[in-house]
């Protein structure tokens, strides 16, 4: 049977992985399994920007995917970016198996504020729903409260809700229950 795999890149608190697992389990019928954490790939760090290239992290996660992978979701504390953009909260293969979520900018500490577990939890759930949605073919939603809407700053993440809008939820369920998406 296929499974959804979670993998930490570098060190990630197990509590955060618990939140990720609970979020994925709520939507997906496949079992969720955790893989041993991965080290950062050597070429992923950009010293000029002090950030990690998400493309290289995604490649490393894809390489680690077991054969029966339905989807594999990487989680990291690293601040991710792509060459053209100053940062990304996460990245996913549209309608593909791999996604990655960065905790760096979801933490209040990034913005010079005291850490807040409740806020981090909410943001992790929204970001996991967002990247997981992409892996099932969902594109950005015009509804700003839907976790599938595009967030270009943390304020937009905070204005999202922790559940899909009707249209995106329906599309996701249809995709998950489609013949080629059924648990095997």
């Amino acid at each position, binding site marked *: 049977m296929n499974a959804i795999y979670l993998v930490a890149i570098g060190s990630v608190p197990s509590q955060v992985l618990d939140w990720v697992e609970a979020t994925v389990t709520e939507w997906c019928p496949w079992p969720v399994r955790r893989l041993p954490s991965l080290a950062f790939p050597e070429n992923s760090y950009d010293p000029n920007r002090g950030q990690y290239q998400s493309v290289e992290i995604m490649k490393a996660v894809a390489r680690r995917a077991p054969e029966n992978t339905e989807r594999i979701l990487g989680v990291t504390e690293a601040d991710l970016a792509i060459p*053209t953009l100053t940062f990304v909260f996460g990245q996913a293969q549209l309608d593909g198996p791999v996604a990655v979520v960065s905790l760096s900018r979801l933490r209040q500490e990034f913005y010079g504020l005291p850490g807040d577990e409740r806020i981090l939890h909410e943001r992790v759930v929204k970001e996991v729903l967002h990247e997981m949605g992409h892996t099932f073919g969902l594109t950005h939603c015009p509804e700003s409260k839907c976790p599938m809407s595009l967030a270009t700053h943390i304020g937009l993440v905070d204005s999202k809700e922790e559940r899909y809008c009707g249209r995106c939820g329906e599309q996701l369920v249809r995709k998950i229950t489609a013949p080629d998406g059924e648990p095997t």
Partner: protein
Amino acid sequence: MKKVWPILVVDDEEVMSESMAAWLREDGYRVDTAPNGQTALELAKKTDYAISFIDLKMPGGMDGIETMMEMRKLRPEASIIIITAYATVDTAIQAMKEGAQEYIVKPCHPQEISMLVSRILKLKKLQSENVILRKKISRKYRHHDIITKNPRMEEILSLTQDIASLRSTVLICGESGTGKELVARAIHYSGARADKPFVSVSCAALTETLLESELFGHEKGSFTGAEGQTKGKFELADGGTIFLDEIGDISAKLQADLLRVLQEKRFYRVGGTDEVSVDVRVIAATNKNLAEEVKEGRFRDDLYYRLNVIEIRIPPLRERREDVPLLAEHFVQRIASELGKDISGISGDGLKALIDYDWPGNVRELENVIERAIVTSRNGTLTESDFSWLTQRNAAGQNWDVPDVPLSELERRAIIAVLERKHGNVKEAAASLGIDRSTLYDKLKRYEIVH
């Protein structure tokens, strides 16, 4: 369904183009990537990309600016965004001068790119809607969409083609409902002004003051309620055509103003002191006999000659009965489909009833009659019974050939006719006319009718 815009990302570094493509795909765009200018051009030949992101520095072969210039030769309307890691004022100026829509320095904030993309696509959407609407309008009013097999009408259509590219003033005469505006639009949309505005004004629909403001616009505060400067129809039609319907109904003052515009191509807004210049072709229309109006002193002869450079007389429908079946079938197809009714056509006796009718309201009346029949009919074909009320109307109308005279003259003639029928009996004549005896006596006195 939401349109999926195609976007192209051109960069020699795969990690850059692929990561950017992945980010854009998450937004729902179809994204292609190219590692160099040559490949980008090959792709652009096949796909009209809504946006092309091109990296400025690409070693070997064409750089970003060269790629952009070649791409613009292929697709002059292409929206190109130049991306570079090193911003210098010179390269930015060069990129913009060569036609780049934007110039961004990487890495840039996701919000910046997101807003840039949505701004460009919003514009693209408006542009493509504009093109579609223009095509639709132009298709609607092409001369061969005027339905006729009448030789006189065919001559008129051929004339509209000949005069379409001239800027001479045209006067279209014809009874109400003959399609004067349709002919005016056919002239406009067949000529060089087709992509410029066609502005239609019904001169009879407005009072003198309102019409003046409607035609020439007004300045702020020029009259009560004039809260801001407003452009008139002449300004709105700049570069295109203004269609002045029912021109025979305009006042002496407006006739003088209009003559000035036609002579000098300049005018003042109401309450304004600055002259406004326009390049507008004027097509006027009337259902009156303007030559007669001139003779009677109600219409300026100099304006008449200015307007009447090319005259088109559209025959009434009763003088081209061969067009009735063609037009009727055309209206049935169009209206039945618009109303969602399953009506395939008109029976032989139905067509005969239509051909026999005199159509005082011309093509417009025919269209209304067909619509009424379609709405009330319960059959798949319209038959004579669907037009029975028309036959009655025809019979009633046969004794009522309304002459082209003022209403007071009609009243005078009606009183004389009724008095004759009643052998000079005023009491009976008043009862027949539905007025009392003293009112009839007043009218007899006013119209100097001896009885």
